[in-house]
């Protein structure tokens, strides 16, 4: 009986550890978004990435819940050891009307990029 109990405890510990590892390897959309200025009216509803022809491609869906807002965005492409693969991208303006959503695509500048961050900023 004691043997079974110890096996059960061991199995439970392994499962918990695996879950924690899985959680830490996939950061949430909130963790992957950097907000600057007043961008509270913009919600990020979806975020995904895929390697296409050897280059990391990201897709972010944003939605504007309140009044029309002038926001700009850029991607930060990250390679090994969390280093940015190139210098900063220019801010790109995006127009999303009230209640509208839009899909933003980003392609990494080099095949070295393995991860990304999505940066939102207001302009004007």
């Amino acid at each position, binding site marked *: 009986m004691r043997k079974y109990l110890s096996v059960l405890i061991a199995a439970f510990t392994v499962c918990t550890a695996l879950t924690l590892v899985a959680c830490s390897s996939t950061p949430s959309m909130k963790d992957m978004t950097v907000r600057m200025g007043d961008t509270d009216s913009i919600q990020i509803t979806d975020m995904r990435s895929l390697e296409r022809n050897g280059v990391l491609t990201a897709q972010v869906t944003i939605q504007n819940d309140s009044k029309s807002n002038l926001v700009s965005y850029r991607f930060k492409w990250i390679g090994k050891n969390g280093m940015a693969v190139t210098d900063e991208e220019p801010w790109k303006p995006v127009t999303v009307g009230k209640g509208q959503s839009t899909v933003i695509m980003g392609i990494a500048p080099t095949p070295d990029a393995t991860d990304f961050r999505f940066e939102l900023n207001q*302009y004007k």
Partner: protein
Amino acid sequence: MTMNTKTIRLSAIALAIAALTACSGPQVRYGDAKAVETVNADYGSTDLQMIAEAMTRSLLQSKAISGSKDAPIVTLADVKNKTSEYIDTRVITDKIRTQLMKSGQVRFAVSISEMQNQTDELKRQNQSGLYKNSTIAKTGNMQGAQYRIEGSIASIVKNTKDVKDVYYVFNLNLINNESGLLEWADEKEIRKTATR
């Protein structure tokens, strides 16, 4: 006498103030070169940056570039300005070239506009008789480009008393020099509206 002293003092103060104002000059500060520029609806730095980035990234992902074993050799042809504005299209292609070079996926052969400098240098080394033979860059070893990049930028501008609407479309093509086939093409659209 006292009146005279007062007048002199006052005029001295006025002069000092005037001198200080003249010295202060305009206020100068550095801005963010990557920030969104919305001074007016004309073609601007944000347009240039957005066009170059969109074209570079799309080109890097194309089969012609990502699918080749060695980094293919490409040359820049001209981008035609079909807009009513003066736009230095060479700046756009140079920016695209720099970003492609930094990716390490493409090599560039000298373009037509840079050819004069290249031939001048080869002539100088080979024909002047001033250089050690073993160090001379030999003629006949230049590499031909596999592909060339060319395109155009066009615009539609509409004006009313209070509104100015500008639409730009930038088109870029990658053409195989040997086969004449278009290997990749993409476009970037920009719309800007200025209201009073």
